[in-house]
């Protein structure tokens, strides 16, 4: 089974009963499977007229009470940004899949990249938090798809599930669990006339009432007060925005997930994620055979960024490599967080997976010359 197909099956297992999407390589297989499978569980599949409309439909479906998902790639992800921001602002749970391809613009439709990771954080305008997950294999893809829906419901937020053409189209053997733990949005337990959809006085995540269940409230992208109605009052605006940001940042421990592989005795740590991490695993096997003590720090949650965990891991090694299939995006976060360890970037955005040989030779080169090299400053520099 391919990565894209796994997403669809996992979504349905997680309780997703609404999919609105639009064809775009290399994500269309998610739509194909949803089109076939959703009717069998009394779900709803709609192919919309474009990605903007898809996001709008997902928001509507979620407000009506359904777990809703859409899937796209770079150009479609760009189109979705305005509505994504609306979902953040109105606190509407949903899952947005982006199977990344070469960019920018039309780019390389049939080839992988990791070029949208910064856009996942800041693609839509204005201050907003976001959760983004990025699995590196198909078993993890299944788990993280389910997790994406759970986090969306728990935190009343869009969750971006990242993948790339490599993982999306590759085939791997994957075992589906018999059952998965699913969470649903916390509904209000007070009568409709007392309900405040954006209450700042209680929990950071206010309970969410679905349409058609007797609760009538106002949903808007305008800055609003706790009733949902628009407000330009400075105190209210600030309080709401603070709660919105804190909603995610205060729960990082619950939201963050990462893997540390071989870092216990490592001289070299390699930061990699998604398809890039697969190249790193290959390189690590070879380097370990050659006696090089190397380990990997692999975020599964890429937003919020795992500041503390990375800082701690970087402090224990002599150098931190950063391997990305883009021209240098997460490395900027790493430079923000890691101050005392040299950083070496291996950045490729050619549409090809990163060659493990390049990682191996960079490691050897650094071991020979590393002490004389300047700390990494220019992200586009070739490492060897």
């Amino acid at each position, binding site marked *: 089974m391919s990565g894209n197909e796994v997403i669809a099956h996992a979504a349905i297992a997680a309780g997703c009963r609404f999919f609105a999407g639009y064809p*775009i*390589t290399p994500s269309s297989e998610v739509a194909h499977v949803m*089109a*076939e499978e959703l009717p069998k569980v009394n779900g709803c599949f709609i*192919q919309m007229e474009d990605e903007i409309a898809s996001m709008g439909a997902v928001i509507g479906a979620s407000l009506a009470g359904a777990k809703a998902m859409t899937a796209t790639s770079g150009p479609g992800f760009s189109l979705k940004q305005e509505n994504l921001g609306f979902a953040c602002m109105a606190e509407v749970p949903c899952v947005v899949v982006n199977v990344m391809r070469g960019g920018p*613009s039309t780019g390389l439709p049939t080839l992988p990249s990791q070029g949208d990771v910064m856009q996942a954080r800041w693609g839509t305008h204005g201050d907003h938090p976001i959760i983004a997950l990025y699995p590196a294999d198909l078993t993890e893809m299944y788990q993280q798809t389910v997790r994406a829906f759970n986090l969306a419901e728990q935190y009343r937020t869009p969750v971006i599930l990242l993948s790339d053409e490599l993982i999306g189209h590759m085939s791997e053997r994957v075992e589906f669990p018999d059952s998965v733990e699913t969470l649903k949005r916390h509904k209000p337990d007070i009568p409709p006339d007392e309900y405040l959809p954006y209450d700042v006085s209680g929990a950071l995540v206010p309970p969410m009432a679905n349409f058609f269940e007797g609760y009538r409230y106002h949903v808007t992208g305008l800055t609003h007060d706790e009733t949902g109605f628009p407000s330009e009052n400075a105190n209210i605006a600030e309080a709401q925005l603070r709660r919105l940001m804190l909603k995610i940042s205060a729960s990082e421990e619950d939201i963050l997930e990462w893997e540390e592989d071989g870092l216990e005795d490592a001289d070299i740590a390699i930061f990699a994620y998604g398809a890039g991490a697969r190249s790193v695993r290959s390189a690590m096997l070879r380097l370990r055979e050659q006696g090089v003590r190397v380990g990997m720090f692999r975020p599964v949650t890429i937003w919020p960024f795992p500041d503390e965990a990375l800082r701690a891991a970087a402090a224990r090694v002599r150098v931190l490599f950063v391997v990305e299939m883009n021209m240098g995006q997460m490395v900027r976060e790493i430079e923000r967080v890691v101050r005392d360890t040299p950083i070496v970037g291996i950045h490729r955005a050619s549409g090809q997976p990163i060659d493990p040989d390049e990682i191996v030779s960079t490691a050897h080169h650094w071991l020979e010359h590393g002490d004389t090299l300047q700390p990494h400053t220019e992200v586009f520099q070739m490492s060897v």
Partner: protein
Amino acid sequence: MPSAALLEIASRGEPVAGGHRLCSGCGAGVIIRQMLTATDYPTVVSNATGCVEVCTSVYPFTAWNVPWIHNGFENAAATITGAEAAYRAMERRGDVPKRKNKKPMKFIALGGDGGTYDIGLQSLSGALERGHDFVYICYDNGAYMNTGIQRSSASPFGANTTTSPAGVVIQGKQEERKNLTAIAAAHDIPFVATASPGYYMDFTRKVKKALDVNGPAFLNVFAVCPLGWRSEPEDSQILARSSVETCVWPLYEIEDGRFRLTFRPNVKRPVTEYMQLQGRFSHLFKTGNEDMLTHIQERVDAEWEQLLKRDRREREENSE
């Protein structure tokens, strides 16, 4: 012995070169050659994302012998109107370089049904509303073929596509086709027409007329897709005529609001003749699906009756 008109068309050279990657039997390939050999105007083409765009511009080659721009999926019309408006302004200012060919520069926006009926509808409508002097040509093969045969609003009722699959309970696309030609005509533009490369004299005449009128024109052109339709490549021209002869794809034009049928089949063929050559409809021929076939035939008949009536009425009103 080919007609004089056909010889003249064939003598105009190849504005679209061979060696592109379109499938054997692709209707769109025939359309782009015919549309550019219809006249000898210098032409600029903007092309929406899709089969034609991808297959005619595989690096490091291009099949286009005319200036050609691919912008995005949804903005072929928007892009060409930018080129057209800027060019007019430059002409007015005298900033346009001298050309050997004194014929006026013409602007064509080209898109498949995906990039025209759905994601490109907004862009098309805006361009028509603003009245730019350009022609929008839609090659309609009834699905998003380039990305894997997903349904579009142009897909016929009952069609088996990857997002309207024919299963045990739901038998293909449940929605009727959108009438985009009527939507274009509702913008009150000088010229709107349907065409098929199976009737190339009618098609090329309409392209010339569309380019000649002052203002926006819209052509909706029937395009066969052997891959997506599961038809034989050698049947493509047969299908391009069968669609017309079964009245699935009536040929008409609307000139300054005046409707006129441009072709009437001598014998109206049953739609099953057209559908039987295509695997995307094979499930409709299974036992138990007779109602769907009847429904499709009845709808084609009803729409054709409407068009006949309209043609007759307008001829009477204009005392022809």
